[in-house]
């Protein structure tokens, strides 16, 4: 038990809810997780032939989040740091100060001018791809976009309150890296003529 067993209590609510596990189950659990992938929230029925377009859609969804973040929220201005909340073009971000304390993140990822340039180029070409999407595909993209934006906001908010949290920094960097990867995939798919 988490509390000494000879401790006296006056109510059942005082009993510890958590009990120490006799051993760490994580290594065993981790091995099993690899064989049990996360199930999709709303699986789309279809055949194997549809797998590639669906993957493309997933990639496009990630990129669409970026596109909305940049085109709608920030216009075509410079891409800001991942810790910076979305704001109208030319308007200073209201919570920028505490989030910008995350210097390690800036240094590690976003302040790199190559990153900013590549991202801006990819986003620019992405807009045309979004415009060319059929309605249902665009709807799926927009649905995914909401989830992605929520994740980013959660991470940014959490980092604003705990800027030195290494795991949060890593998670946010991973999220942005995922976006970049997807952005590149969509760009390459567009160049090679593959589409939805």
């Amino acid at each position: 038990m988490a509390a000494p067993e000879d401790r006296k209590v006056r109510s059942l609510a005082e009993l510890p809810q958590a009990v120490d596990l006799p051993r760490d189950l994580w290594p065993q659990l981790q091995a099993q997780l690899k064989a049990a992938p996360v199930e999709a929230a709303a699986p789309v029925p279809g055949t194997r032939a549809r797998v590639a377009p669906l993957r493309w859609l997933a990639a496009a969804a990630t990129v669409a989040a970026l596109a909305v973040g940049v085109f709608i929220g920030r216009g075509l201005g410079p891409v800001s740091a991942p810790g910076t909340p979305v704001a109208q073009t030319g308007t200073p971000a209201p919570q920028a100060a505490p989030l910008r304390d995350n210097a390690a993140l800036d240094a590690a990822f976003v302040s790199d001018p190559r990153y900013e340039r590549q991202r801006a180029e990819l986003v620019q070409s992405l807009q045309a791809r979004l415009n060319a999407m059929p309605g249902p595909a665009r709807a799926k993209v927009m649905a995914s976009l909401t989830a992605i934006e929520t994740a980013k906001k959660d991470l940014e908010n959490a980092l604003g309150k705990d800027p030195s949290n290494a795991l949060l920094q890593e998670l946010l960097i991973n999220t942005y890296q995922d976006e970049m990867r997807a952005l590149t995939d969509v760009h390459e798919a567009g160049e090679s003529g593959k589409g939805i």
Partner: protein
Amino acid sequence: MQAQVQENRVEWEGALVQRAAAGDTRAFERLYREHSGRVYGLCLRMTRDAQLAEDCVQDTFINAWKALSSFETRSSLGTWLHRIAVNVSLAKRRKSGPVVEPDPEGEDGETGSWTLETPVEVKELEEAIGALPDGARDALVLHALYGYSHEEAAQMLGIAAGTCKAQLHRARKLLKERLKLEVN
């Protein structure tokens, strides 16, 4: 202050859930480390068997991992995990022994606060709880220890709210006899 801490934890947890749902096992490990103690506590009290409870914890987290994308981050992850853990524990218990259906007699509105007239050692109280019949113990653990309402506990256990109250009434009576003191 407490509310702020809780709010931060929920935000932080929401971000971890999102990452885990995308397949990030490191994020899921953090969630496991945060919740495994409470899940194990619940499973242990329901099964009364340390090895079985460990299996339940594993199954709970595997089921949670598979279904993470259907979890709504606005609700409590702890409660969601407890629901899974209760289902897993009940299923394991059914496999390992006969099921005694709850007896709904004696239902009369269980509204006490589960305080004891004199303090009792944790060990003695845990043993008394562990000696209760399955149905009464399940209801008691979820309601009095983990703070779920009659309706929530009943829903988790797949029984009627009235039956849950009856089980609590029975648990109170049996605890009183075993501990030889009033349970209010």
